[in-house]
């Protein structure tokens, strides 16, 4: 039985390698012509991760705006959005279809760490440029992948900045942490510990939870018993709601702090029945009610072109992720080629739209380590606590 399983797996692996190899040899359709540039993105539109899929629809809004304004150097953007249901096997299928059948020139965004990992090498092997994966994973840029440009701040950097804020501004001595037992949670834990070490402090409790768990009573009691005054939670939206409900029931009221993944306050406020008020989170783009000229422009365009969409952080993150690609295509000019696009992207210096400042060089493709710190106010409003701040401890910059 065991032998049979192994055989099947190795056979499958061999077949996969063969298919990928044979495709890499075949000539791909050109990614653009005189009239259009083809750009693709995957993102869950159905299934459990569908709420994050609005990223992919947000990018579409930007391309619609660009096309309305006449396109880029005479070329319109043709956008392909594919639903991969947050399933890496599906991601591989839709990406291959876009590359080999539709002739996509570049990818933008793409929700998910595991989904991106599944196609990262395939895209690089086919020299397809991929800008701004919609996930923070250091393996996207370390080691350097010449075709992949990331701007999502790493969870570790964000956690480090949040920990600094907790110690210096909130002045809490007893800090606890609840983290999801995977790369997301562990990266966050690492960042917090690294920062606390500089103050010669340590966490009073570090409690892991499995992504699928639904009962957190014992974990919350551990945190309560530790006397933590501030608790960082690097967990999923559902887990965060369970955490707050359980803590409220058990009479535990610390200051909750979380990552940008939970910065969609209207959603979190709604699904937690209002318990989200007072929670502090990081943020990787301006708040939805920001009055900056660019945010106002995008918000008005969204009202006009996609009135059915909620103006949530993940929706307009799709715009922020696509901005650098549009900018690079503009900088390249009429003589478009993959090499020219790479050259343009590699020269980004302090480029900023509605997110943090982005810097890309030939040697460094992790574009930023900046986050803002916000707090959920009454009625799911956004209160700015700290503007863009970089992580002075980030090791990858050195």
């Amino acid at each position: 039985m065991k032998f049979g399983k192994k055989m099947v797996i190795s056979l499958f692996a061999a077949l996969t390698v063969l298919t990928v190899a044979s495709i890499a040899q075949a000539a791909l359709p050109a990614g653009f012509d005189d009239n259009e540039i083809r750009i693709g993105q995957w993102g869950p539109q159905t299934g459990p991760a569908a709420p994050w899929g609005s990223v992919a629809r947000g990018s579409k809004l930007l391309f619609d705006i660009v096309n309305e304004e006449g396109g880029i150097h005479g070329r319109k953007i043709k956008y392909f959005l594919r639903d991969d249901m947050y399933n890496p096997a599906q991601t591989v299928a839709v990406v291959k279809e876009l590359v080999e059948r539709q002739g996509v020139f570049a990818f933008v965004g793409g929700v998910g760490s595991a989904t991106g990992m599944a196609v990262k090498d395939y895209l690089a092997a086919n020299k397809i440029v991929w800008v701004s994966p919609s996930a923070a994973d250091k393996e996207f840029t370390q080691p350097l992948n010449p075709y992949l440009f990331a701007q999502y701040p790493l969870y570790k950097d964000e956690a480090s900045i949040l920990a600094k804020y907790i110690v210096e501004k909130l002045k809490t001595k007893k800090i606890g942490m609840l983290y999801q037992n995977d790369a997301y949670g562990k990266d966050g834990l690492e960042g917090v510990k690294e920062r606390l070490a500089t103050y010669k402090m340590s966490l009073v409790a570090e409690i892991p939870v499995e992504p699928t768990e639904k009962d957190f009573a014992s974990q919350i009691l551990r945190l309560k018993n530790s006397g933590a005054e501030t608790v960082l939670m690097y967990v999923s939206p559902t887990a965060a709601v369970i955490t707050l409900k359980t803590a409220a029931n058990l009479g535990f009221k610390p200051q909750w702090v979380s990552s940008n993944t939970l910065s969609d306050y209207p959603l979190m406020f709604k699904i937690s029945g209002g318990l989200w008020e007072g929670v502090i989170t990081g943020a990787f783009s301006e708040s939805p009610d920001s009055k900056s000229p660019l945010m106002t422009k995008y918000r008005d365009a969204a009202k006009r072109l996609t009135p059915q969409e909620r103006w949530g952080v993940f929706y307009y993150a799709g715009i922020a992720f696509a901005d650098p690609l549009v900018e690079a295509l503009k900088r390249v000019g009429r003589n478009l080629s993959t090499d020219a696009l790479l050259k343009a992207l590699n020269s980004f210096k302090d480029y900023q739209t509605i997110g943090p400042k982005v810097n890309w060089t030939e040697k460094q493709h992790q574009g930023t380590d900046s986050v803002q710190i916000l707090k959920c106010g009454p009625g799911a409003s956004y209160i700015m606590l700290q503007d863009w701040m970089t992580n002075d401890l980030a090791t990858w910059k050195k």
Partner: protein
Amino acid sequence: MPFGQLLVEGLAIGACYGLFATAVVIVYKTSEVVNFAQGEMAMFSSFVAFHILTVYQWPFWLAFVITMVFSILLGVLIEYLFLRPAKHPSILGMIVITLGAEMLLMGLAGWKWGAEQKFFSLPLNPSVTYEPVKGMIVTNWAIAVFAVASVIMLLLYVFFKYTKLGVAMRATQQNKHAAKIMGIRTERVFSIAWGFSSLIGAVAGMFFASRATLDPAFMMEPFLRAFAAAVLGGLMSIPGVIIGGGLMGLIENFFGFYWPSWKPIVAFIVIILVLCVRPSGLFAKHYVKKV
């Protein structure tokens, strides 16, 4: 160690697992089929309650009654539409059919209500808690779970022991053909079992949803735990699964307090150990496969 608090929390979530496991056991008792759609049936019924509460904004008691009626119909319908038409079904075949029903319900819920999490609450004031002993907080949620689980247990006990239909159901489980010869309409018995099971599942589903969030996948994990509790209790005995659920909740909470990373698996390890010693569970009376 907050012993009292862990005890209360463990028993409360355990009662919830036990309640849901009862739903699994009722179907298993009559037809020896493990219904893998059980969790999603409960999920779907909870969504119906959510829909009535938020879209029509009817009072909770009315939404509850309608949901109960709906859940019974859902159970009967799934049995009638999916399991009954199967010709000469094997147990495995039936289980696969329930898996299909699970996928179908999840897809339908995702299509109707979307994948985004929803807020679901029972009319229990979360800010009112009781502290009978210092350091031991009992919430309204826990009290409601204990009360509802006890009432349902009592009703089931009376039903299976003293009513004609209950006896007919037990007879069908013991020997379908003999029961048929004795004039029991076994097909109707199956329908009723599915309806009952769906109803109890829906009640447990609403308890789970109010503790977390409501989304199409929210019952997958509780189902696994409830199923494990049912196996621990012996799959056949209703008091057994309640005790199984309680044990499960207590083990999880006490181990989870000291070794949080072991929390999700420790109960399963205990179950494997128990099954090594007592292959048919702690409280099963019958384990000889009928020929």
